[in-house]
């Protein structure tokens, strides 16, 4: 069994294909969509948690790449630059999942990667710009 959070990026020409349907039907995977958006240039982004048999998962990923989709692991997406973080806590009421949270009573801020759904709300809400994504987010803003 594998369980993986991934981000699929769709070039404009395949935004309208029933990718999810195929993943479920042809590859027997369980798909839980975390977030989806299409930017004005018609490029799409889909964040999901995928689980199933390892072999099915690998076949599905290979098939998706063939279709021209770009796949990245969600965990790699949001980086908490602890060296830039001032532990102000501004992000803790913006983060919808509690991935960024205060440790009490020390009032140190912690980032729990497992809880992050890459909604990216923290990126601009952090005054010190300590939250980063290596992917070119400009495309999606």
């Amino acid at each position: 069994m594998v369980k993986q959070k991934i981000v699929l990026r769709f070039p404009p020409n395949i935004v309208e294909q029933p990718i999810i349907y195929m993943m479920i039907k042809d590859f027997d995977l369980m798909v839980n969509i975390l977030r989806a958006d299409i930017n004005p240039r018609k490029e799409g982004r889909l964040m999901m948690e995928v689980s199933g048999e390892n072999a099915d998962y690998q076949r599905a990923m290979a098939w998706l790449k063939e279709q021209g989709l770009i796949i990245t692991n969600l965990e790699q997406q949001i980086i908490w630059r602890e060296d830039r973080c001032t532990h102000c806590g501004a992000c803790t009421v913006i983060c919808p999942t509690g991935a960024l949270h205060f440790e009490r009573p020390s009032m140190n801020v912690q980032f729990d990667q497992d809880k992050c759904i890459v909604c990216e709300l923290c990126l601009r809400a952090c005054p010190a710009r300590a939250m980063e994504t290596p992917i070119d987010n400009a495309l999606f803003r």
Partner: protein
Amino acid sequence: MKVNRSIEEINAKIKKGKAVVLTAEAVIDLVEQKGSIEAAASVDVVTTGTFGPMCSSGVFLNVGHSSPRIKLTEAYLNGVPAYAGIAAVDLYLGATALPAADPANRNYPGEFLYGGGHVIEDLVSGKEVRFEGFSYGTDCYPRRKVDTIIRLDEINEATLFNPRNAYQNYNVAVNRGEKTIYTYMGVLKPNLGNAYYSTAGQLSPLFNDPYLKTIGLGTRIFLGGGIGYVAWHGTQHNPSAARTDKGIPRDPAGTLALIGDLKQMNARWLRGLSFLGYGATLQVGLGIPIPILNEEIMQYCAVRDDDIIAPVTDYYKDYPNLEDGNLGYVSYAELKSGLINLEGGKIPTASLSSYAGAREIAITLKEWIESGRFLLTEPSTKLPSAEADIVLKSMPQRDPEKREDD
């Protein structure tokens, strides 16, 4: 008073490495267990700290004379304008200054990724900064344009001078409107979706000396990771604000103007910030030592988050329109718990000022004093306090065509 101690006596102990120093956090339990007299007898200094966004910060620079000379009328550091109307090569760079090319809020909410605060952070980090200057040219200052690179260690002076820091208490910001707003108090979600506060509470300097009985002109402090001084009372100083039974102001009250040599500070405690939809500013780390002259001062230093209350203020309508009033008061203990009760509901809270940073500053200052490298100073004069009856003024609105002094 049962305990009486002078700053001179404290300094003599610091020099011998024998001063007893506690942070404003650590001293709370001691006073609760032993009482203020016994605690005052055993503690010489209490250290405080705060590390929050502080507009009204900036730096005076003297960039040295060029050859041929120029009398600057316009100056830019990495594109951020500095005020040049002081002298030929003296400038003041403010924390909130923005490059002319910044799109500001034209693409709302603007990101304000680089402003005066960021230039100050870059300077103090030792980074190279592009310096452009312009002038009209005179016989003695013929040059009209410079375009070069400067570094902090190569310029004559860089004096951090912050006209208003260390706010004694501050609003808790909420949004009663129907849409998200972007403020200097953070991103506020509609319908009281969240609340931001911005002081270190029990660790904050002016909560520990609420009547400015020890902090005065010339008090030596921790500023931006180096040593600074209290230069004056801060702008908008309002020590006559209403107070609780324990003497703690309930509303934004006293402020301090601070000064120090930027060259011995560090970027850990001077950080450029970008407030979405609002602008750029500087996060300033500062800490003030409080000499325990007697049990009364000790009692003030025992202030705890439960004793400190702050006004919840609507930033959708009331704050922008300078309307009086607030939605009620909440304690710092509640604010720090992560939820406050307001208008029958619970609102999630977070801070903009780093409590962890404030604690680290208080501990650092304690270590400096214990090791003998930081001596306390006797203020050369007192700052105006509650008895000064200062009334905060707002801007008069008059018809510019009808001057009364004509």
